[in-house]
């Protein structure tokens, strides 16, 4: 107990001081390697956007054990070809534009590039949501990414404006944006990303995997091996299953199915309703017998 009290005191603001979710890049519900579509979500909560004439890039999970202290994974952002790039950025949107407003905030992270030194930019954007005030951008700061196999920890501190007097609409957020180099190729590795209140970078807050997964599931949930099933006496019978979601999502989610396997189904799986707490999936039978659909479903309530 004494240790816990001391740790909280040292941090100044107690636990969950890291406003980023999945800053340790531990949760990868969508997969572990992604090509350069735009936008593309990579590790949970993190997405890449780009604009330019052409781009060949891969964003992937890498094994960090023995390389990056206590980290299990890190993310590699690798560009192997590109021309006319005007945007190439790596972003996380933090729910609630009030986050860290009217004060100092510090972003810290470990980084390296095995192929050569790079310079990246880090900026914050206050977005007031649909129907809200115009975006406020907090000026970008340059960060040197070291060359070689030894990662180094970097930090930048921002003065975040007050949101007093602003109109807050729907789905507002604070965005942390890492602007990748626009010229040349790179292989930037990032780990242990943390955004916290104040002007001092404290040690990376490593949360339990279950905690981090639950935080991610508010925005994206992948449910594998789902089944909607019934015995019917003919065609055109509708079977509906109700699924309670593991975490209340930020909004009613967008739903997409994959890996579908069916028997005696003429339509579906289809979404009957989707709310922040539950999903109803339906199928329509094509004849008498066991009518079912086996599927994986992805639910997205990202910002």
């Amino acid at each position, binding site marked *: 107990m004494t240790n816990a009290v001391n740790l909280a005191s040292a941090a100044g603001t107690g636990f969950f001081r890291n406003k980023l979710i999945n800053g340790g890049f531990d949760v990868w519900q969508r997969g572990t390697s992604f090509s350069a579509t735009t936008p593309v979500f990579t590790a949970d909560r993190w997405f890449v956007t780009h604009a330019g004439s052409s781009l060949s890039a891969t964003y992937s999970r890498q094994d960090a054990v023995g390389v990056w202290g206590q980290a299990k994974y890190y993310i590699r952002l690798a560009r192997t070809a590109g021309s006319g790039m005007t945007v190439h950025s790596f972003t996380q949107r933090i729910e609630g534009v009030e986050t860290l407003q009217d004060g100092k905030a510090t972003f810290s992270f470990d980084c390296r590039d095995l192929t050569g030194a790079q310079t990246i930019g880090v900026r914050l954007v206050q977005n007031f949501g649909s129907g809200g005030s115009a975006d406020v951008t907090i000026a970008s700061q340059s960060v040197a990414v070291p060359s070689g196999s030894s990662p180094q920890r970097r930090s930048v501190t921002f003065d975040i404006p007050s949101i007093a007097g602003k109109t807050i609409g*729907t789905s507002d957020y604070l965005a942390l944006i890492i602007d990748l180099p626009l010229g040349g190729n790179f292989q930037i590795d990032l780990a242990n990303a943390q955004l916290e209140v104040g002007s001092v970078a404290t040690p990376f807050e490593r949360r339990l995997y279950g905690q981090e997964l639950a935080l991610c599931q508010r925005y994206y949930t992948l449910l594998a091996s789902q089944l909607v099933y019934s015995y019917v006496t003919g065609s055109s019978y509708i079977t509906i299953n109700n699924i309670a979601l593991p975490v209340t999502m930020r909004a009613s989610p967008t739903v997409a199915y994959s890996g579908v396997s069916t028997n005696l189904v003429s339509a579906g799986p*289809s*979404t009957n309703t989707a709310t922040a707490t539950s999903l109803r999936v339906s199928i329509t039978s094509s004849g008498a017998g066991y009518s079912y659909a086996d599927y994986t479903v992805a639910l997205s309530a990202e910002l």
Partner: protein
Amino acid sequence: MYSNAQYLRDELNGQVDMIRLDINGITSFVPLDPANTDYQRIMALVEDGKLTIAPAEEPTE
């Protein structure tokens, strides 16, 4: 990014509560929730005349 959109009815109560469409070629279902960012983008495209949403089929019973 968004194409082939149509409103869908809740099969239990007949209310229109969903849009079925392709998002990057993947069949998806978007609830009519103003906080859903896909719904926000879809409505912006509709407002700009860049996307049309077909009406829901009439209930069968």
